[in-house]
C-alpha cells in the first residue's frame, strides 16, 4: 500500500478547465460554418476540410516525433488550425496546395517557434498568406455556390464593394455568395462566435472592437451609408477573422486594455486595406500585422496592480 502523502503548493482545487476542452469548444463553434460550407459549395468542401485537418495533425505529430518532443496532438490545437485554414480556402483549391499551406502553418509558424503558446503569429493566417502569395490564381478563383445559376459568374462581395456596387444583405447573411469555404455564411459564424463567448472561451472585447472599428470606418468612408457599412461588416473574412482568428490566445494580448488596442488596430488596418489599398480584402494581413505588435501592446498596457494608484513605477 502506498501510504505516502502528496505535498504540493496551494491551491489544492482546480476548476477542471483544460486546453483540450477549450480547443474542443472552438471546434464545436466552427461546426455550423462547416455544415454551411457543404450546403453551399457541395461535398468538395469536405475533402478540403479533411485534407487540412489531417495534414495539420500529421505535420504536428511528425515534427514532434522527429524532434523528440512530447506529442501534443491530443490537445486538438492542430485540428483547430486545420479547420481555420480550410475555412480560408476557396472550394476549388487543389488539395496538394492545401497541404503546403498546412506545412507552413504547423511546421514553420507553430512548431519551429516552440509549439503551442509560443508562435508569434496565427498559424492558419500565415498558412493562408503563404498560399495567397504562392498560388494567387488558385486562391482567388471562387466558384459559385450550388444555389447560383451556373452561367452567372459574379464577383465576390468584396470585389463588388471595391467597384462601388453593393451586394444583397440577405444573401450575405446566409452565405449565398462567392468566397472561401467558411467565411460566407455570416449567421453560422455568429452562432459559433456567440457560443464561444457564452462558454467564456473568448471575451467579446476583440470581436466587438474589431468589427465595430471596421463598421465605423466604413460609415465615415461612405458618408454614413448604413447599407455600405453593413455590407462591409458581413462580407469577406471579417466575421471569421474577428471571432476565430484575432481571438487566438497566443497571438493576442492577455490583458483587457491590450485587447482593445489590438482589436482597434486590426479593424483600422483592415479598413485601410479594403478602402485604399490595391487588395479587395485585408483581414488576414491586418491580423498578422497586429500579431507581431502584441508584445509591444502588452508592454504599454500592463495593468496597474491593486493599490498602486499614485505610486510611480
Amino acid at each position: 500500500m502506498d501510504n505516502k502523502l502528496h505535498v504540493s503548493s496551494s491551491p489544492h482545487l482546480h476548476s477542471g478547465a483544460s486546453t483540450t476542452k477549450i480547443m474542443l469548444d472552438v471546434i464545436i463553434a466552427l461546426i455550423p460554418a462547416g455544415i454551411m460550407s457543404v450546403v453551399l459549395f457541395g461535398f468538395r468542401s469536405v475533402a478540403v476540410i479533411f485534407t487540412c485537418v489531417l495534414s495539420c495533425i500529421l505535420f504536428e505529430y511528425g515534427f514532434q516525433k522527429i524532434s523528440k518532443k512530447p506529442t501534443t496532438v491530443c490537445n486538438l490545437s492542430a485540428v483547430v488550425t486545420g479547420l481555420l485554414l480550410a475555412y480560408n480556402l476557396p472550394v476549388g483549391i487543389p488539395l496538394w496546395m492545401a497541404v503546403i499551406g498546412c506545412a507552413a502553418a504547423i511546421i514553420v509558424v507553430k512548431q519551429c517557434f516552440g509549439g503551442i503558446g509560443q508562435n508569434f503569429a496565427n498559424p492558419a493566417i500565415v498558412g493562408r498568406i503563404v498560399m495567397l502569395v504562392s498560388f494567387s490564381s488558385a486562391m482567388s478563383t471562387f466558384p459559385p455556390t450550388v444555389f447560383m445559376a451556373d452561367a452567372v459568374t459574379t464577383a465576390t462581395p468584396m470585389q463588388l464593394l471595391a467597384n462601388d456596387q453593393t451586394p444583397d444583405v440577405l444573401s450575405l447573411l446566409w452565405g449565398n455568395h462567392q468566397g472561401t469555404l467558411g467565411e460566407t455564411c455570416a449567421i453560422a459564424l455568429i452562432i459559433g462566435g456567440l457560443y464561444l463567448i457564452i462558454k467564456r472561451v473568448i471575451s467579446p472585447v476583440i470581436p466587438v472592437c474589431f468589427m465595430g472599428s471596421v463598421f465605423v470606418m466604413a460609415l465615415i468612408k461612405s458618408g454614413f451609408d448604413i447599407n455600405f457599412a453593413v455590407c462591409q461588416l458581413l462580407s469577406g473574412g471579417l466575421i471569421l477573422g474577428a471571432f476565430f482568428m484575432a481571438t487566438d490566445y497566443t497571438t493576442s494580448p492577455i490583458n483587457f486594455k491590450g485587447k482593445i488596442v489590438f482589436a482597434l488596430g486590426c479593424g483600422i488596418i483592415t479598413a485601410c486595406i479594403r478602402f485604399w489599398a490595391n487588395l479587395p480584402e485585408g483581414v488576414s494581413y491586418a491580423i498578422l500585422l497586429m500579431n507581431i505588435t502584441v508584445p509591444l501592446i502588452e508592454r504599454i498596457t500592463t495593468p496597474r496592480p491593486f493599490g498602486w494608484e499614485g505610486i510611480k513605477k
Partner: protein
Amino acid sequence: MKIKTVLSPNGHVHGGAKVPHRKNTSEFKTEIMPTPSTVTIPMQMHIGAPCEPTVKVGDKVKIGDIIGDSQAFVSAPVHASVSGTVKSIIDFPAQNGGYIKAVVIESDGQNEVSDSIIEKTVTSAADLVSAARESGLVGLGGAGFPTHIKLSPKSDVRLDTLIINAAECEPYITTDYRECMENSEDILGGIYLVKKHLSIKNVYIAIEDNKPLAIKLLAEKISAMRSEEGEPIRIVKLKSRYPQGAEKVLIQAVTKRKVPSGCLPADVGCIVMNVTSVALLHRFIKTGMPLVNKRITVDGSAINQPKNLLVPIGTSVSDIIEFCNGCKSIPGKIIMGGPMMGMAQPNLLPVIQKQNNAVLILNKADATKKEESACIRCGRCVSACPMNLMPTLIERLASINDVESLDRIGVTVCMECGCCAFNCPASRPLVQYMRNAKAVYRKGIKK
C-alpha cells in the same frame, strides 16, 4: 425595527474564482473533543517574533497558564491548553517548513483551570489592548496577526470603520459560520467593546450570501440590541466569490477604499477583525480564559465523519482523525486550512495552531494534480487575479531572472490566493511560480 442589509457596493471582487462551496459541515454543531493524552504547543502561532518557553520540563501547568512569551512588540503569548506536566521542549516541524520550539504537555485528564483566570475589567483603549495581548489572540482567519497590534494603531491614524470578516470564502470551512450561529452574543459583545474603546463610527459585518441563516440570526440579534447602543451595526451581504474574505478585497467591497500597496488597513481608516477573533476577545474579558481552544472543520473526501470540533491548541492531526472515526480510504493529502490557501502536510504530526481553522483529509484521487502543460496565453490567470497582476508574465520573467521587470509589474502585491492556478487550463502551479518569482525578486533586490 428591521435592519437593512447593505449590498456590497461593488457586488463582487475584480476577477476571483467561482470555487465550489462544499460547506458540508455547515449545520454540524460544534463538538467538544475529549482532551488528548498529550498536546504539542508551538511557540510561534502568529506573525512576529517567536515566544520563548517560560516553563521547564517537569513543571505542572493548568489550563490558561502562560507557557511561552516574548518581549518583542509583534508577538503573542502562548498558554497551556490542558492541565498536566511539561514532558519535553522540542524542535517541532512547522506547518510551512522549518522548525519551531514547542512545549509538549502530558495531560493529567483533570482539566484544571489556572487560578489566573478571572474576569477582566476594561475601561479604556489601553486596557483593551493589554487584554488582547494577555489573551494571546491572533487573527484567527488564517494570517495570525497579533490582535493587540491591530487594536493599537499609530497615533496619526484615524480609525472610523470596523469590518467584521465573516465572509469565509474558502471551500469546506464552516468554523466562522458556526461561530455566528452559536456565539452571536459574544460577537456583538466584542464588536461593542472595540467600537466603544476605539471610538469607531461605522461597523460592518461582512458575510457571503451563501450563509442566509447566519445573516438572519445576526440581523435579529442586532435589532434586539439596537435600543441600548447608538449607531447600528450594519450587515454587508457579499456575493459569494473567492477571495471575497481577503482583507484588501473585503475593505474595497465594503467601503470602496483601496489599501495602497505596502500599507495596512488602518492607513485607510479601517480595522478588519475575524468574527471568531472578536468573539474570543469578548469571551476573554468576560471569563478571563485565553485562546486555548480552537474550532476547526474536519472534512475532505477521505474522512469518515466530517465534524466541527472544538479542540485544545496543540492537538495532533492523528488524534483528530481518530476521533472522527478514521479514514474511509487511504489519505492522499492532508491540508491544514482550506483547499485554496492551506498547506499540504507531509505526515500526521502537525498540531492545531491558533490560526488554523480546518483540517482536510483528501483521498488519493483528489490529491493528485493534473500534469502541467504549456501556457496557451489564454489570459484566465490575468482576469482572475484580484490584485490585477499578470501571473503568466511574472512566471516567465522569473525564469529569466528579470528582477527589474518583476518590480515594474508588482510581483510583491501577490497574496497567493490561488485564483490563477485554480483557473489555469494548462494546470500550471502558478502560486508556486509566484512564490518562486518573489524569491527571485528578493534575491535580485538585495544585490
